[in-house]
C-alpha cells in the first residue's frame, strides 16, 4: 500500500535507528551518547514525517515535529547542560564490556524479530522491519540502563526506550490518538526534567552520580 520509494525511505530510517542503537551501546563517551541520541530522534522524526506523508494523517506531522524539537534538540541540550553542570567524568563506565554488549544487542535484535514475527501476519504494521526494530530499540534501551552505571546514562537509556515505543506506535498504528500522543510527550519531558533534578540532587548529596553507590537501601 505504500509506494516503494517511501518504503525504502522508511526501511533506511529504521536501519539508521537500529544503527544508532548499536552506536549508543558502543560509544564510551557521554557527549557522543547525547549526539547519537539526537540523531536517532531526528531519524525517528523523519520517519514519522514519511509516514505522515504516506498516510496523509496530519496529526502525525505534528508528532514528527514535536519529536524532532523535543528529542533531537531540547532534551539532548538539557542533558549536555546537566552533564557539564555536574561535571560528570566523560567515560561511560559500562558494567558489561563494549564488545560483550554489542553481542548481546545483536542477540536482542534477533529476539525482537523472533517475537514480532507472529504479529506481522496481521499486516497492520508498515513493514516487518519497523516493528522488530522498534522492539529491539526498546530492549536495547533497557539493556543500556541495566549495563551502564551513571544516572545520566540511565536517563538516556530510558529515552531510547521511549523512542522505541514511539517508533512502535508509528509503525503499528500510525501513532496514537492526538491527545494521548501529546500527553505522552508532556510526560516524557516532565519525566526527563524531574530525573535531571534528581540527578542534580543526588550529585549534591553524594558528590557523584554513579548509581552504583546508591546501594544504601537493601535487604
Amino acid at each position, binding site marked *: 500500500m505504500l509506494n516503494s520509494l517511501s518504503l525504502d525511505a522508511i526501511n533506511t530510517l529504521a536501519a539508521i535507528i537500529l544503527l544508532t542503537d548499536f552506536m549508543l551501546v558502543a560509544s564510551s563517551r557521554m557527549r557522543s551518547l547525547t549526539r547519537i541520541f539526537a540523531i536517532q530522534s531526528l531519524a525517528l522524526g523523519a520517519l514519522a514525517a514519511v509516514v505522515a506523508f504516506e498516510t496523509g494523517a496530519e496529526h502525525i506531522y505534528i508528532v514528527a515535529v514535536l519529536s524532532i524539537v523535543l528529542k533531537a534538540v531540547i532534551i539532548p541540550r538539557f542533558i549536555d547542560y546537566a552533564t557539564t553542570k555536574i561535571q560528570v567524568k566523560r567515560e561511560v563506565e559500562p558494567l558489561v564490556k563494549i564488545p560483550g554488549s554489542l553481542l548481546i544487542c545483536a542477540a536482542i535484535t534477533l529476539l525482537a524479530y523472533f517475537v514480532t514475527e507472529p504479529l506481522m501476519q496481521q499486516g497492520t504494521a508498515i513493514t516487518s522491519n519497523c516493528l522488530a526494530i522498534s522492539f529491539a530499540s526498546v530492549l536495547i534501551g533497557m539493556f543500556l540502563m541495566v549495563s551502564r552505571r551513571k544516572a545520566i546514562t540511565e536517563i538516556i537509556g530510558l529515552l531510547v526506550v521511549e523512542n522505541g515505543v514511539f517508533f512502535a506506535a508509528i509503525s503499528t498504528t500510525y501513532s496514537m490518538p492526538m491527545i494521548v500522543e501529546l500527553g505522552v510527550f508532556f510526560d516524557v519531558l516532565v519525566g526527563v526534567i524531574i*530525573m535531571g533534578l534528581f540527578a542534580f540532587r543526588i550529585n549534591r548529596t553524594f558528590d557523584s552520580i554513579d548509581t552504583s553507590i*546508591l546501594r544504601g537501601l537493601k535487604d
Partner: protein
Amino acid sequence: MIITLILLPVAVALVCLLLNRYTKLVETASVVGAGLLLLLGSILVLHVFEEGIIDEGMWYLDQLGAFMLLIIVLIGFLAILYSVPYMRHEHENGEVSSNMLGLYYTFLFLFIFTMVLVVVSNNLGIVWIAVEGTTLVSAFLVGFYNKGTSLEAAWKYLIICSIGISLALLGTIFVYASSIDVLGENSDLHWTSLMAVAGQLDPAFLKIGFVLVLIGYGTKVGLAPMHTWLPDAHSQAPSPVSALLSGVLLNCAMYAVLRYHILMTHSSIGGAFSSGLLLLFGLLSLGIAAAFIITQKDYKRLLAYSSIEHMGIIAIGFGFGGFWGIFGALLHMFNHSMTKALLFFGAGNVLQKYKTKSIDGVRGLSRTMPYTSVLLLMGALAITGSPPFSVFTSEIMVLTGGIDQGNILPSLLYAGMIVIIFAAFMGHVVRMIFGDPPEGMEKGEVNKAGLIPMVALVVIILVMGIFIPDGLSDALRDIVALFGGQV
C-alpha cells in the same frame, strides 16, 4: 460532575502552593479540600453504586472505577488528616521547613489528582499518562526528606517505574494496534469502545500487549520481581505518603492491569491466559514477600513487603477467578488499603517516638505508647489475616476461589505462604510491642491527633470483617459480572 472531581485536587494543590508561607492556612485548606473530595467522591460512588455507570465519553466511571475512587478519597482524606499532626511534628523538630510543608501538601494533592485521573479516564492512553503522572509526582514525595537514602529511593522509584511504565505504553500501543483492524484508524483507545469489540480484537497483538502491560503496570503494582523499588520508596517516604502509596497507588496500578485483564477475558484469547499470568506473578510476589518479611529488620520495609504480599494476593485472586476469587480480590483491595494505612500511620507514630526504623530499636511499645501499640497490634493481626478483621474475609474468599476453581496446588501454596507470613510478621510486631523500652524513653504518645484516623480505620476493618454493606456487596457483584464471572 467528574470534571469537578478531577479539578478539585488540582485547585487545592494550587491553593497550597500559593499559601505556601502560611502553614495553618495550608493545613486548613488541605483538610477542607480532602473533606470536600471525600464528600464529592462519595456522592459519585454512591451514584454509581445506586444508579449505574456514568459515561461522559472521555470520563467514565463504572462500579470498578467507583470502587477504586472510594478507596482513593477515603484513604486520601484520612492520610491528610493524619498528615496534619504528623508533618507539624516533623516541622517542629526541624526536619521540614515551612516552605517544604506547603510543597508537601501541594504534591500530595497532585498525587491524589493523578490517581483520581487513573480511575475516571475512559481512554487507556490517558490512564497511562495518569499512572506515569503518579510516578513523577510521588517521586517528589518519596524524596521529600533531602537525605541520601530518600534520594536513592526516589531515584530508583523514578527509573524503575518509568521503565516499567514505558513497557506499559508499548503494551497499550499493541492493544491499540489490535483494534485497528476492527475499529479502523479512528479507534480512540477508549476502554468502552474496545470492550464493545473485545471478541474481534487481534489476538496476537493483544497477547503481547497484555504481557507488556502486565509487566509495565505490574512494576507499579509491585509484583515480584519488578517490585524492587517498592520497599525503598515506602520506607523512605513520610508515613502518610507511604500509606497513600501502599494503600492507593498500588491499587490504581492494579486497576489499570485489571482493565486489560477484563478485555482479555472477553477477547478471543479467553481469560485463562491473563489469569494464568496474574496467578504466576501473584504467587511469586507472595513467596518473595514472605522471604523478606522473615528476614526483615526495618519495620517500614516490613510493611512495604507486606504490601507486595497483598498485591500478590490480589493478583492471585484475579488469577483464580470465579466469583469468589474476583470478589475476594476486589474486597481485598479495599481491605488491604484500609489496614495498610492503619499500619503506616502507626509506624509513623512509632518512628516519631523512637526515631529509628529498625525493628530491634523498638521495644516496649505497649508501655511507651499504649494506644498506638494496641492499634498497631490490631492492625498487624488484621493484615496477617486474623478474624474478625476484614482481611481475613477477603483472604478466605480468595482461597475459596482457588479451591473452587480446582487450583488446588496454588491454593495450598497460597495458604502456606500466608501462614508463614503471619508467623514472621507477628514475630516482628510482638517483639516491638512487648519487652523493655530503651532507656530514657518516656511514656506518652507523640501524635495524639493522629490516633483519630487510626481509630476510624480500625472501626472500618472491624465492621467490614463481620459484614459487608449491601450496596457495596451489590456493586462488587456487578464488577464480578464485568469479569464474566458468574454471580
